[in-house]
């Protein structure tokens, strides 16, 4: 195993261009790695070997003709919540057992248009509901750095696969931190783009006003490459915005001079894990050394974010998941009449966390409770958004921890959903405000678990946070460390 399949998209792309390896080599190496390592991690839920190899052969031919897009022949793993024509799309739920997508998500189609190979489907929390990837009909995913620990969630399969070397890069989705938090737990780069930057068409909705698709990669440059390929207005998604798409890779200049980075004091609380706190503070100091100015910032409504998030997200989810009723697709339990059939089908095939959130969401939208919960949450959401707008008049980006703790043990928090929800405190705000956020590795605990630094930027401020993340990454070596289960042997 010596192809750049275990390095980065940039390296693999260069090797393909130079002809030192083929796309078939890349895919074969990854398939072999998946074969040997996936059972320990449970990151992939399905891999279409033959289709992937066929796409790789086609990509090699395209490249031989001197054609092909920016990702020609590059294999990408896809979170099980995104539709890829002909592939299963089970959203890690029993209720969609046997379901196959009749169409491509727009983001997927755009990667395909650039020549990317859609290697396989990655495990996740059921319907993207969870922060530990323990809520999956396929079983929990394990953290490559310590398989007794969770990889984070809900894009846990994507992060674990990238960290373990069984995916070169992957797609995740982020509704309240579901890209950034697992990226942080697994030592990867995770980007949640601005709401409306990437089309949501084909993303099985959890919370429509919060969901975004984004990349989980080994380097910031790779995240930038995938962002460039997937971004832009889509006539199929009315909430995607018609903003110009820059070449995000070209913006990675490494130059931080003149940039003001804010430290929101509400994100450096007492309860935060001391090793996380230390790693993030040291990363902040490092950024100062790189030429950025660090300023103190306040985001006063942060303490209401978790409550606000879990009202809005569950309300939207309760409607979004209503379609899973056994009438047109997926699992069905027989009943005496349609309502009975729905009840039995949904009771039998949704997992407990999904049911909990549907019930919460149904409650907050119910007659008599709407004003007190949903309407009030929307008002607080506006205040949180205003906090950020205010903050970004004083600085270019914010530096915060991604999660108050590093990865915890499997089963450690499953008995206490509230405790699990509180772990999302630093990530849900970006979704509520619709801004962009990036997680980059910034250290390890003594136990050897990764810690992530979060960069938050204003709406359509991806260029700034990617530039800061890239400069930080390139002047540190956290992203080059590999876990014990690493599939790739020595890096190329």
């Amino acid at each position, binding site marked *: 195993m010596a192809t750049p399949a275990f390095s980065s998209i940039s390296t693999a792309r260069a090797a393909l261009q130079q002809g030192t390896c083929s796309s078939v080599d890349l895919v074969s190496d990854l398939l072999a790695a998946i074969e040997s390592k996936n059972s320990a991690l449970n990151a992939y839920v399905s891999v279409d070997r033959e289709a992937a190899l066929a796409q790789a052969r086609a990509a090699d031919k395209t490249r031989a003709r001197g054609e092909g897009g920016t990702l020609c022949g590059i294999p990408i793993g896809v979170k099980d919540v*995104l*539709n890829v024509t002909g592939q299963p*799309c089970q*959203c890690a739920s029993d209720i*969609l057992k046997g*379901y196959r*997508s*009749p*169409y491509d*998500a727009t983001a997927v189609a755009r990667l395909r248009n650039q020549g990317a190979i859609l290697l396989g489907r990655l495990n996740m929390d059921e319907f993207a509901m969870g922060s530990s990837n323990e809520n999956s009909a396929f079983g929990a995913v394990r953290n490559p750095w310590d398989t007794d620990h969770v990889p984070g969630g809900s894009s846990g399969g994507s992060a674990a696969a990238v960290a373990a070397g069984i995916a070169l890069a992957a797609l995740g989705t982020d509704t309240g931190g579901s890209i950034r938090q697992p990226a942080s737990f697994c030592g990867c780069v995770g980007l949640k783009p601005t709401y409306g930057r990437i089309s*949501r*068409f*084909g*993303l*099985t*909705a959890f*919370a*429509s*006003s919060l969901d975004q698709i984004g990349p989980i990669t080994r380097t910031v440059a790779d995240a930038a490459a995938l962002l460039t390929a997937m971004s832009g207005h889509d*006539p*199929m*998604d*009315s*909430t995607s915005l018609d903003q110009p798409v820059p070449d995000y890779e070209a913006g990675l200049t490494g130059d931080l001079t003149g940039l003001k980075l804010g430290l929101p004091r509400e994100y450096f609380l007492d309860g935060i894990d001391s090793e996380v706190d230390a790693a993030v503070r040291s990363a902040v100091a490092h950024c100062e050394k790189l030429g950025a100015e660090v300023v103190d910032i306040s985001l006063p409504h942060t303490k209401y974010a978790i409550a606000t998030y879990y009202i809005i997200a569950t*309300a*939207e989810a*309760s*409607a979004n998941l*209503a*379609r*899973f*009723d056994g*009438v*047109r*697709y997926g699992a069905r339990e027989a009943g005496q009449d*349609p*309502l009975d059939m*729905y009840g039995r089908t949904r009771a039998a095939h949704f997992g407990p966390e999904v049911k909990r959130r549907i019930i919460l969401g*149904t409650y907050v*939208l*119910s*007659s008599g409770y*709407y004003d007190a919960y*949903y309407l009030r949450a929307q008002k607080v959401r506006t205040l949180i958004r205003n906090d950020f707008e205010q903050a970004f008049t004083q600085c270019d980006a914010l530096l915060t921890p991604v999660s108050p703790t590093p990865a915890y043990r499997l089963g450690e928090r499953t008995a206490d959903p509230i405790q699990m929800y509180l772990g999302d405190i630093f990530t849900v705000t970006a979704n509520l405000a619709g801004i962009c956020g990036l997680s980059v590795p910034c250290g390890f605990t003594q136990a050897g678990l990764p810690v992530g630094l979060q960069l938050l930027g204003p709406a359509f401020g991806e260029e700034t946070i990617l530039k800061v993340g890239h400069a930080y990454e390139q002047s540190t070596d956290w992203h080059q460390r590999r876990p014990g289960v690493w599939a790739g042997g020595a890096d190329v």
Partner: protein
Amino acid sequence: MSEEYKVSIGLETHVQLKTRSKIWCGCANVFGSEPNVDVCPICLGYPGTMPVLNREAVKLTVLSGLMLGCEINRYSKFDRKSYFYPDMPKNYQISQYDKPLCLGGSVEIEVNGKKKTIRIHRIHLEEDVAKNNHFDGASGVDFNRAGTPLMEIVSEPDLESADEAFAYLQALKQILVYGGVSDCNLEQGNMRCDINCSVRPESQEQLGTKTEIKNMNTFKGVHRSLTYEIKRQIDELRKGGKIYQETRRWDDEQGVTKAMRSKEYAHDYRYFPEPDLMPVVLEEAEIEAWQASLPELPATRRQRFISEYSLPEYDAGVLVAEKAIADYFEQVAELSGNAKAASNWMMTEMMRVLSDRDAEIVDLPITPAALGALIKLVDDKVVNMPGAKTVFAELVEQGGDPQAIVDAKGLAQVSDTAALDAWVEEAIAANPKSVADYQGGKQAALQFLMGQVMKASRGKANPPMVLDALRERLGAAG
């Protein structure tokens, strides 16, 4: 003497809009396809799909609002209305809750010569649902209809009888068809309504408890069900009973309304703003352009027909009832230069043909140009009325040029005095008794002699000239 009761009826009328494609996707908006043919992942509610608003549906709703005198909301939005039913692909319907496209407005009706204004409460836009079909031991859902743009027009409870409700629906249909907003074809389910009905003693100010009758799809059914329901409610109150707020179902065969099980309608719809769609913001210029594109409405047109063409009120009403007929009439009137004759032809011969054949005027081979030319031939005395009716019958069958038909069938009117005199002499000689009767004072005998002359001429004689000739020859009646 028992107290009299007042009736209050409000209608929620659902109208399918005449767009090419569905409201959220590109599937065809057509009727009559095989089941589940006009469908795609979007209108089937597949995971990951999203709606994209068809702007034409917004335009047609706003046009309806403009025709009904509504206030158009410059800022409008969509909301999710949640309920589980197999005809709902997503188990929520995208509708409009607190920011509908149109507010206010009214419809003019006339019942037994009495005119009345029925106020509109609001008009909103939503998606139609699928259609459930029930077979032996199983049910199937046909999603062709799912996602058809559906406009809901909610009236105020201003209607006070079944007749008024019927007239309201007819007036509404007429306006919407005029505006090209919908075909309002009831057989195809283009127009359906829910009825809210309550009664109260005349002395009572406050509205009585209402019942709702759901899913009526014929105007006749609305009339019959209301006639039943009004009587049921009054009878109930008269015998000291109580009206319960409930949803009732019309049983057309038995001719009664029946209470539905509470489980069937007790919904908490849990409305909240649709996060997949942006609010609809209408520009002033856009609304003005739509306003300018509106056709003349039936009531205005009727007044114009009366003043411009000097038509009797009744005739004007009949002619404007259907836009296609009114358009046809106006073309004939213009081409013939004789509105009175055009109206006569339309009111008699044309209406008879349309009703005998149950046909649409646009489907007949006879064009307005042909009918206009035919009227001219009559006015120019090229053909007489009996001949013209023969030509008309031919035009209705296969169209063509009236002059050519007159020539081919030899229908040209004979006005040559010598020929007419010969036929007149012939008739007098052959009918001495009629001559005597006429001279003895029987006017009818002259008509008989006239008929004989027409017969001899095979219908081609110029009737007024024949009459003159007969009078001249026989002298005045005695």
